[in-house]
């Protein structure tokens, strides 16, 4: 038992919590100290304690990682989320798989950002770090795992608890020091490189939203109503980039791993981060306009504060268990919902009070805002973004509304609309149109004061270009829906307008090109989303006309295709053929037929039955032992045109008794489209074992015979000395018959074994050819007549049901994402430079 590491981890967590409280206290005292000397003293104090906090957080992270890395399965966390077989890089995924670890990840980013703030911004250090420290105190309390005696109040859930304390297993009563041999392993869905990258990026985005929030709170607190924006702006942009990238990486993971047929499903968990991101983008825009407009200043305060509150709300939604039936993949309830609610309400009320106290003191606008000012357009844009968020937030909050209603004694049973994707998309699309138009027009106001004539002159070219592109687009792509037509026109317009601006800016001042690049990227993303989702099309239509029952005959339009092995079908202009079930070797690239391997007692280890080739390359020699991942089965599907193989797809089904079964697609990527195929129903084990009555055939040793209408031959009988890689005991005698069967395309071999035992019972090892639905048993050998008895059984040939979708122009979405991120990067650099200049002048 390794008690000390867990005790250390726990000690570090408690230290981090206490240090965060002390740091908050010191920094607050520093802000409120009357004299400069005292301010400085408390500031140094706060900084010192914050450093201790950072060290303690690092200590807690290292402790947890040591536990995971060394497979200390006496700890609940390591036992539940990892096993010995897990490759080292996925141990990171284990780290943030549980709620506690993901809290630690979030806490970690706050400490990193806090350290950067201390280094870059001495002027704002006290108020900003005070807010950060309070947040850290709340977050570390979530992983404290302390029970207050007497009132039995549990605060937080510790990642350092021992297995025996977490589970009430009887074994711990008998044997308190029991350590399981192996852990339960990481959910195979999360064993994906995107799951190593996505959570850290997303939590970096979460953490980054705290910084503008802290500056804003600090600004109100110090009555510096406008000065907080300049240092906060680069951080807000950084948060926009990292949160946006985090969301997209999650979508990309879902696209590659899950099988709902896309990258975005409007699941509550997704919505919970999408809404704060939209509001954050709105906040960034009003922050940019604050200098000339006091209304923009007020809006910046409200929106910046709202972003962080929404992040807390999304944490509450996904981690408190309140979503329950509404989402398939929310975290399980750790009993922390009360604590999470207090956390949310604390900051909501604190922010509201602070704003209310200072609202009247904000400077007010004297004159009316003009429709030809950039502030006006920014306002409209920010309002559209917020309403866009509201439309998603409202249905996502139904479970919360139901809870509150029940609490108030009202019976509310609201559920999200049946077809979530259509419900959200058909309304979000109009907001997207508005955003596209505004970002095209608004950009022109950005650069100069402009009147009606000038505006029209500026807009002339982009509008014309957009129209020409639009006509080209609709004459090639068949777009009919009005909403789609309008969105594509609007998106083309913003692309043309922003490219025009970009071309004039890039020469004179490239550092200012961030906005134009980001908006061009957004326009491309809209086009990419419109085509890849709006025109995503099921291509695996079932046109056989087979009916399930007369009663249901109206249901004709089925979107799945039943493929029998080696029976070609027409699909999507290709001749497609299912070739059979494959496994993937653990250490080499390639797919291996299940018929080419012999299983051993260890499910992770198999033996090659013959020389194994993949695409002409020899992977293993006959008799070689190698490792596979037995959970995964790949279904080889060949796509041919005019008899030439164009490509082969290997969609996957993962069978995991603990996490359930899961089908993942295989995606064939072309420039203009992705072909996305997944298994919608694999052949079940029952169907595989549904054999006919055994037919026994007594034939000559080297006879040719018919098996289920296929021509079969006994090639040879051979004595063997080992089975499944294990040598046979000398008291056994085993004979293998090699039977070849001529299938439609190739000749298959089956090798049933007959075992005689001199001391104990022998046995019959049947061998099957799933491609033909045949199973042979060597029943007996008759030396007197030189005959053998063969048992033949048949069943339905192997089959698989697939669904295939075409995703046109999805690459435009990825290209647009790249541009958006580049734009953010340029804007962050510019705003940071502005801030640094002011700092050098001693202003900040």
């Amino acid at each position, binding site marked *: 038992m390794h008690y000390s590491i867990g005790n250390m981890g726990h000690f570090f967590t408690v230290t981090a919590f206490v240090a965060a409280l002390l740091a908050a206290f010191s920094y607050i005292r520093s802000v409120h100290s009357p004299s400069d000397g005292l301010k400085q003293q408390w500031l140094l104090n706060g900084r010192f304690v914050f450093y201790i906090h950072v060290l303690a957080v690092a200590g807690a992270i290292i402790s947890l990682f040591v536990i995971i890395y060394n497979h200390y399965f006496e700890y609940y966390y390591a*036992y*539940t989320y990892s096993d010995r077989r897990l490759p080292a890089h996925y141990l990171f995924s284990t780290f943030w798989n549980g709620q506690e670890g993901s809290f630690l990840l979030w806490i970690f980013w706050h400490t990193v950002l806090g350290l950067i703030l201390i280094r870059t911004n001495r002027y704002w250090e006290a108020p900003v770090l005070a807010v950060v420290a309070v947040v850290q105190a709340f977050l570390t309390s979530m992983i404290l795992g302390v029970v207050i005696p007497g009132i039995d109040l549990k605060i937080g859930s510790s990642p350092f608890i021992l*297995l025996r304390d977490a*589970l*009430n*297993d009887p*074994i711990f009563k008998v044997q308190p020091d*029991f350590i*399981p041999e192996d852990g*339960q392993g990481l*959910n195979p869905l999360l064993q994906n490189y995107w799951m190593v990258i996505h959570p850290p990026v997303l939590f970096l985005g979460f953490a980054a939203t705290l910084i503008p929030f802290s500056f804003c709170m600090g600004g109100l607190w110090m009555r510096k109503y406008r000065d907080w924006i300049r240092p906060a702006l680069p951080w807000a942009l950084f948060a926009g980039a990292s949160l946006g990238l985090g969301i997209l990486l999650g979508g990309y993971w879902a696209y590659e791993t899950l099988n709902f047929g896309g990258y975005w499903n409007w699941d509550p968990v997704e919505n919970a981060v999408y809404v704060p991101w939209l509001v954050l983008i709105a906040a960034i825009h009003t922050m940019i306009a604050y200098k000339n407009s006091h209304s923009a200043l007020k809006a910046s305060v409200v929106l910046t504060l709202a972003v962080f509150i929404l992040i807390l709300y999304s944490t509450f939604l996904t981690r408190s268990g309140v979503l329950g*039936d509404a989402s*398939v993949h929310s975290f*399980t309830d750790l009993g922390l919902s009360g604590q999470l609610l207090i956390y949310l309400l604390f900051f909501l009320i604190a922010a509201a009070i602070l704003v209310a106290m200072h609202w009247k003191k904000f400077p007010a606008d004297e004159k*009316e*805002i003009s*429709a030809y000012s950039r502030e006006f357009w920014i*306002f*409209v844009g920010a*309002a559209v973004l917020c*309403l866009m968020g*509201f*439309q998603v937030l*409202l*249905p996502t909050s*139904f479970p919360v509304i139901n809870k509150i209603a029940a609490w108030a004694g009202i019976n509310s*049973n*609201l*559920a*999200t*609309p*049946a*077809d979530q994707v259509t*419900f959200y998309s058909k*309304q979000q699309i109009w907001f997207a149109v508005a955003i596209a138009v505004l970002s095209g027009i608004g950009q022109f106001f950005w650069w100069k004061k402009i009147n009606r004539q000038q505006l029209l002159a500026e807009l002339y070219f982009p509008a014309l270009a957009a129209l020409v592109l639009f006509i080209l687009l609709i004459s090639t792509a068949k777009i009919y829906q009005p909403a789609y037509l309008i969105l594509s026109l609007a998106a083309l317009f913003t692309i043309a307008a922003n490219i025009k601006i970009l071309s004039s800016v890039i020469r004179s001042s490239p550092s200012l090109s961030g906005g134009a690049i980001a908006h061009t990227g957004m326009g491309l993303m809209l086009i990419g989303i419109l085509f890849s989702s709006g025109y995503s099309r099921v291509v695996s239509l*079932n046109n*056989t006309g*087979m*009916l*399930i*029952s007369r*009663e*249901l005959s109206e*249901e004709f*339009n*089925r*979107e*799945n*295709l*039943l493929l029998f092995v080696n029976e070609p079908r027409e699909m999507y202009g290709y001749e497609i053929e299912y070739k059979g079930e494959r496994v993937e070797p653990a250490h080499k690239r390639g797919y291996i037929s299940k018929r080419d391997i012999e299983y051993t007692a260890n499910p992770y280890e198999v033996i090659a039955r013959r020389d194994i080739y993949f695409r002409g390359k020899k992977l293993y020699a006959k008799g070689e032992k190698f490792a596979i991942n037995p959970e995964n089965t790949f279904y080889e599907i060949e796509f041919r045109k005019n008899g030439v193989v164009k490509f082969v797809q290997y969609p996957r089904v993962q069978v995991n008794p*603990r996490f*359930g*079964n*899961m*089908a993942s697609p295989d995606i064939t990527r072309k420039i203009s489209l992705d072909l996305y195929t997944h298994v*919608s*129903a*694999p052949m079940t084990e029952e169907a595989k074992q549904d054999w006919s009555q055994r037919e026994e055939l007594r034939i000559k040793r080297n006879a040719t015979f018919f098996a289920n209408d296929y021509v079969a031959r006994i090639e040879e009988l051979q004595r063997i000395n080992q089975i499944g890689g294990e040598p046979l005991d000398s008291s056994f005698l085993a004979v293998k018959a090699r039977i070849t069967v001529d299938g439609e395309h190739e000749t298959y071999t089956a090798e049933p074994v007959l075992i005689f035992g001199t001391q104990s019972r022998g046995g019959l090892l049947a061998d099957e050819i799933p491609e033909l639905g045949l199973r042979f048993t060597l029943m007996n050998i008759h030396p007197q007549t030189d005959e053998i008895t063969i048992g033949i059984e048949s069943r339905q040939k192997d*089959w698989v*049901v697939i669904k295939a979708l075409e995703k046109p122009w999805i690459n435009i979405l990825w290209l647009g994402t790249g541009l958006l991120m580049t734009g953010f990067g340029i804007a962050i650099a510019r705003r940071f430079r502005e801030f640094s200049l002011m700092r050098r002048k001693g202003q900040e």
Partner: protein
Amino acid sequence: MKKSHIFLLIILAVAVAILVTTSREASTYVTFSEAYQMASQGNHRSIHVVGELKKNEKGEVVGIETGADKVSFTFIMVDDNGREQTVFYNQPIPQDFKRSEKVVVIGRYKGNIFHAEKILLKCPSKYQENTVNV
């Protein structure tokens, strides 16, 4: 009226419009009896019904019938009030279907058969196990 007031009014109007459409399109959790009543009154909105698969005394799931081409199936579901109902789903049997503890079907009645457009499964709690595999 100041322009900013008009602006605020428009925002409010859109927000109210969102509220109205959302509440109009929102689905509800109901029982099969209520769903049947709604359908017979000509209300063809999709609704959510929560229930379990029908099981025999041994705890085995009964009543699942697959279509000949394996791409659609029917099953018998028991709602929270104990009413049994045949449900048709125009897709292959979802994986883990038989393991599910709780099933949510989203769809509507067509005649006497409930046609599910979507099925949500709640599988036995995947993460919280209380025993150790020794």
